[in-house]
C-alpha cells in the first residue's frame, strides 16, 4: 500500500489537484525563466518579453477549474492557461522566437496567441480590449445554449481603460456567463495602484455593475482554485458575471528590459516570501500530499519538458517570407 493510497478519498483529490497545480505553475515558471533569462539574453527573442513570475497561481488555479468548452481570455502574464489548455510548450517557445511553428506562425509576438480549437483567445496589445470580446463570447455561449462560460483575465491597471468598463457593464446588464479575474499585481508598468485608481481594491468596482466581487490571495493556488469554483457555480447558474480580484505581486520588471527601480525593494522581499510555488510545495509536504522527492521529480520533469521544448523551438524554421501577404482575408 503506497503512501498516496493511505490518504482518504477527499484528501486524495486534494493531493492530486496540488500535484497538478505544482506541475503547471512550475512549468510556467521554468518556461518564463528560460525565455527571459536565457533566450532573451541570447538574442533569440527579438520582441518584447513579459512574464508572470510570482503570479503563476492565478492562471493555474483558475484555468484548472475551467471545462474544455469554457473560453479563456488570458493576459500576457497567464501562460499557465495556455499550458493547461494543451498548447504545447515547444510551440509557445517557437512563438516567442518568431518561428514557423509558433502558435501564430511568426505573425505575432509573445503571449499574443490563441487557438479557437482549444477555446483560448489571443489578446491584442491594447489592454482590456478582450473584456468586451469575452462578454461577446459569453453572449454567444448563452445564445447557443451551451453550458459553458467565458473566463477573462486582466491586470488592475487595465481596469482604467474605457473598454474594461464597457465590457463589465454590458456583461452585467445582459447577465452573461463570464468570470472576470483580476491579476492585481499592484503595478502597471511603473504605475502603482495609488496612481491608477482612487479606490483601494479592484473589487470596489463590482457594485458599479452589481457584480459580486471577491478578494482572494492570488499567491495561494488552492485558494484561487476554490474561489474560481464558487464563481463558476454562480455564473453557470445563470446569475450573471462574477469578479475575482487576486492580490499578488509582479516579481519582475514590467518586461525583460525593465529593472523596476521604481519598486521599493522591501516589496520584492516581502512578496518573495509568499512565492506561490514555494508555498504550495511547503503545503504539500506539510499535508502529506507529497514527499520531497516527488516534488523534486515534478521539477525535474518540468525542466526536461522545457529542455525539449527549447530544442523543438530552436529547430523550427522561420516563416517563409513568401507567405507574408497570405491570410489577411478569408477569400484570398
Amino acid at each position: 500500500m503506497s503512501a498516496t493510497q493511505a490518504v482518504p478519498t477527499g484528501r486524495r483529490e486534494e493531493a492530486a489537484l496540488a500535484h497538478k497545480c505544482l506541475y503547471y505553475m512550475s512549468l510556467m515558471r521554468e518556461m518564463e525563466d528560460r525565455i527571459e533569462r536565457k533566450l532573451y539574453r541570447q538574442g533569440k527573442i527579438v520582441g518584447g518579453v513579459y512574464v508572470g513570475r510570482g503570479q503563476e497561481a492565478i492562471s493555474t488555479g483558475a484555468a484548472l477549474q475551467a471545462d474544455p468548452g469554457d473560453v479563456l481570455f488570458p493576459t500576457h502574464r497567464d501562460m499557465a492557461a495556455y499550458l493547461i489548455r494543451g498548447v504545447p510548450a515547444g510551440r509557445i517557445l517557437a512563438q516567442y522566437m518568431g518561428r514557423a511553428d509558433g502558435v501564430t506562425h511568426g505573425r505575432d509576438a509573445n503571449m499574443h496567441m490563441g487557438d479557437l480549437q482549444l477555446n483560448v483567445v489571443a489578446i491584442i496589445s491594447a489592454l482590456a480590449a478582450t473584456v468586451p470580446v469575452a462578454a461577446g463570447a459569453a453572449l454567444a455561449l448563452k445564445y447557443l445554449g451551451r453550458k459553458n462560460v467565458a473566463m477573462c483575465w486582466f491586470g488592475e491597471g487595465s481596469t482604467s481603460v474605457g473598454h474594461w468598463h464597457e465590457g463589465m457593464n454590458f456583461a452585467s446588464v445582459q447577465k452573461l456567463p463570464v468570470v472576470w479575474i483580476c491579476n492585481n499585481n499592484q503595478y502597471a508598468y511603473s504605475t502603482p495602484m495609488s496612481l491608477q485608481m482612487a479606490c483601494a481594491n479592484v473589487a470596489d468596482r463590482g457594485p458599479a455593475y452589481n457584480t459580486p466581487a471577491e478578494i482572494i490571495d492570488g499567491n495561494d493556488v488552492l485558494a484561487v482554485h476554490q474561489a474560481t469554483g464558487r464563481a463558476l457555480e454562480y455564473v453557470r447558474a445563470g446569475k450573471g458575471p462574477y469578479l475575482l480580484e487576486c492580490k499578488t505581486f509582479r516579481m519582475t520588471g514590467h518586461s525583460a528590459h525593465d529593472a523596476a527601480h521604481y519598486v521599493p525593494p522591501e516589496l520584492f522581499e516581502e512578496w518573495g516570501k509568499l512565492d506561490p510555488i514555494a508555498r504550495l510545495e511547503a503545503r504539500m509536504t506539510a499535508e502529506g500530499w507529497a514527499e520531497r522527492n516527488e516534488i523534486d521529480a515534478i521539477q525535474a520533469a518540468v525542466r526536461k519538458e522545457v529542455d525539449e521544448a527549447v530544442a523543438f523551438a530552436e529547430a523550427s524554421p522561420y516563416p517563409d517570407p513568401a507567405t507574408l501577404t497570405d491570410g489577411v482575408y478569408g477569400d484570398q
Partner: protein
Amino acid sequence: MSTTYLEAIRQGLWEEMERDPNVFLIGEDIGVYGGAFKVTDGFYEHFGEKRVVDTPISEAAIVGAAIGASYMGLRPVAEMQFADFITCAFDQIVNFAAKSRYRWGAAVPIVVRAPSGGGIHGGPFHSQNPEMWFVRTPGLKVVAPATAYDAKGLIKSAIRDNDPVLFFEHKGLYRRIKEDLPAGEYTVPIGKAKVVRKGGHLSIVTYGAMVWTALEAADQLAGEGISAEVVDLRTLLPLDRETVCASVKKTSKVLILHEDTRTGGMAGELAASISESVFEYLDAPIVRVTAPDTPVPYSPPLEDAFLPNTAKVVEKARWLYRY
C-alpha cells in the same frame, strides 16, 4: 412595388436572419424602438430579444461583443446609431477585428452597419463619411452601396462574408431613392465595382450618394454632347481597381467624385492606382470633386456649399472634356 434603400437593407437583414439562426443584431435602441432610423423596426417583435440585442451606450462593447460572438460561430450585425460614433469603437475595429485572421487565423465574420453621409443638416457629428479611416486598414472590408438593389444584395453578402465588413449606409438615401427589387433572393458580390452608365468622353468614378449626383451630371453633360461614363465603386475595400482602370483606358479622362473631404480621401487612392496602372492612357489631369477639408457644417447654406453637387461636377467635367 418600389422599395426604398432603407427597406432594402431591412429586407436583406430580415432574410438573412430567417435563413441563418446564428445571425443576430446588436446595437443601441434597435429593439423595441426599431433603431434611430427604423431600419430594424419590427425585428424585435418577430425575432425576439435573443436575436435583437439592445445595448447600453457602448460602441466599443458593441463591436467587441460582436467579435467575441463571431469567434463562437455567430454572425453578428452591429449597428452604430450614426457612423460618427464608430470612432468610439475604433480600437476594436482596426486592431481587434481587422488583424485577427492575419495574426492567429481567427476569422471575424461581423458586419458593422453605420449610417453615414450628409445632406440632412445633421451638423459635424451626424453627417460624416468615415470610410477612409477603414479603407486604410488591411483586414477590413468596406462597402458603400448607392442603390436599393445593391444595398440589399451587399448587406446579404456582408453577413455571409467571413471577414469584418463595415457597411456604410448613406442616410440621405434611406428614403430618397426607390426601385423595384427582384422577387427572389439575390446577393451582390463584395469587391466588384459597376459601370452604371456607359460613356466615351470621360469617366466619373464615385460611390454612395454621389452616384446619383454623377448620373444627374452625366444626363446634363449628355445634353451638351459630352458622354460621361459613371463607375459606382460599391465596395471601397478591397477596391476593384480593374473596373476603374478599364473605364479610364476607354475614356482617357477621369473625374473622381466623393462626398467625403478631399485630403486623404478615396480619390487619392484611385488617382494613385490609375496613374500607376494606366498612365499612358491618360489624356488629362485626374480631376477631383470632393467636399473641402472642413468638418461638416450645420447651417443649410454652409452645408450646401460644402457638399459636391451636380453643378460642380458638370463644371469640372466640361473642363476635362475640353482639355
